[in-house]
């Protein structure tokens, strides 16, 4: 209990004093996770839309595939990317290993399946007449897609929030392809992992609380957007 109490105190001190290192770690976490979520949303919603509104061979297995990817362990993604990005790997010459870009790629891979899967279920649970009505009223394919997606916007926003939740909280891939470099690739989760290994339990707890606080703020913002 003492740890938790001290952790709360430390979290408050860190937030109020705008501790420079914590602040830059928070910013980096946000930058990486939001960038990854944005990219994953663009790709995931588009893929989800296409999959759910078209008939094609192996449609069921495709959906099952994305559902399976929901439980993709973050370390496995990290490991896989590591072997691609290492100088010995096929895209090693790009020099992306241990950079924020590599972390964005990892989180993109993690967030996309969630957004695809939730988009599919959002559109499938919609009244199919939305699409046919739009088409009957003379909407082209793009207008039709926009109409359907706008109708499903609440569920889509939930998909985006779920994707963000997955990546802001992950540590496996961030650690493996980011390298936890101070001031460059150290995010809140990798910092927590490091500080715990150093025995700085209170500081770790404080960082954990800051992470939760950030997640709360982002959720509120996205929720506001959803209400409009």
């Amino acid at each position: 209990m003492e740890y938790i109490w001290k952790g709360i105190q430390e979290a408050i001190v860190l937030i109020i004093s705008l501790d420079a290192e914590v602040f830059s770690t928070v910013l980096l976490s946000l930058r990486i996770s939001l960038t990854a979520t944005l990219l994953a949303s663009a790709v995931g919603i588009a893929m989800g839309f296409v999959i759910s509104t078209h008939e094609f061979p192996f449609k069921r297995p495709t959906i099952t595939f994305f559902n399976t990817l929901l439980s993709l362990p973050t370390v496995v993604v990290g490991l896989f990317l590591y072997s691609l990005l290492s100088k010995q790997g096929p895209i090693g010459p790009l020099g992306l290993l241990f950079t924020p870009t590599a972390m964005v790629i990892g989180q993109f891979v993690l967030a996309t399946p969630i957004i695809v899967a939730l988009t599919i279920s959002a559109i499938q649970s919609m009244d199919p007449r939305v699409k046919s009505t739009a088409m009957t009223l003379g909407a082209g394919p793009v207008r039709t897609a926009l109409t359907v997606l706008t109708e499903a916007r609440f569920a889509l926003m939930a998909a985006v929030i779920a994707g963000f939740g997955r990546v802001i909280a992950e540590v496996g891939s961030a650690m493996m392809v980011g390298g936890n470099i101070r001031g460059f690739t150290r995010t809140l989760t990798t910092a927590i992992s490091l500080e715990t290994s150093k025995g700085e339990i209170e500081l770790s707890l404080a960082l954990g609380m800051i992470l939760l606080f950030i997640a709360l703020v982002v959720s509120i913002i996205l929720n506001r957007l959803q209400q409009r």
Partner: protein
Amino acid sequence: MRYKVIGKITFFVFTLIVILSPALFADERVKLSTTTSTENSGLLYELLPPFEKMFNLKVDVVAVGTGKALKLGENGDADIVLVHARNLEDKFVANGYGVNRRDVMHNDFVIIGPSNDPAGITKVKTADDALKSIATKKASFVSRGDKSGTHNKELSLWKKAKVQPSGSWYIESGRGMGEVLIMSHEKGAYALTDRGTYLAFQKGGKINVPILFEGDPSLFNPYGIIAVNPDRHPHVKYVHAMALIGWVTSQQGQRIIAEFGKAKFGAPLFYPDALPNPK
């Protein structure tokens, strides 16, 4: 109304992209793969900033176990390695992965354990006997089990003592030094640790475990720095790597190492080795 929503979302997305883009900037950087002890003790936070300022570049520190640190060098994913496992370092150089190895500093390993000392290792004279006694008494012992420099050292000590550690008393944690110290504290188990990390935890009040065995010459813990061979990996920043090796082994660099930890822990955590008579 629906286009208003889309407009808003688009606006939101663009604002975010503008905010986020600096994340992808890159300065002149050089990658140092090293062991957790050098970073976790805080040494690098004092040793690197003057160098970074001098040459206006960033040293990216990837702190992992010695085994992985060397692996990163082998694959060309790091420009320099700073590790502590002399046998592995020599192999690394002999196999053509690294060049220009220099001694940097040393400290020593100690064996810590519960204050009632069930294996009675305070009474023995050599590290061999200490380990033999722990094994015969089947007293709990936490091993790093992670191919780190400390783990490598521990395995060579068991080998030297002609003991094959196994059984429920031998806990292979697969964790870093800090976690092993905490496990030793929580479980009342013996452990091999470098003195630097131990002092940082013990004096910092994170654990309360006494040193039970120390001083055997086989517990010497030297650190070496090696540039990754540019012939093997033409992309590595060899000039930067050599500049960093120059700094770490310079008089000023060695003085920083000698002074580090004195004020906080009452004793230095590392002893400089690169120059004939530091100070």
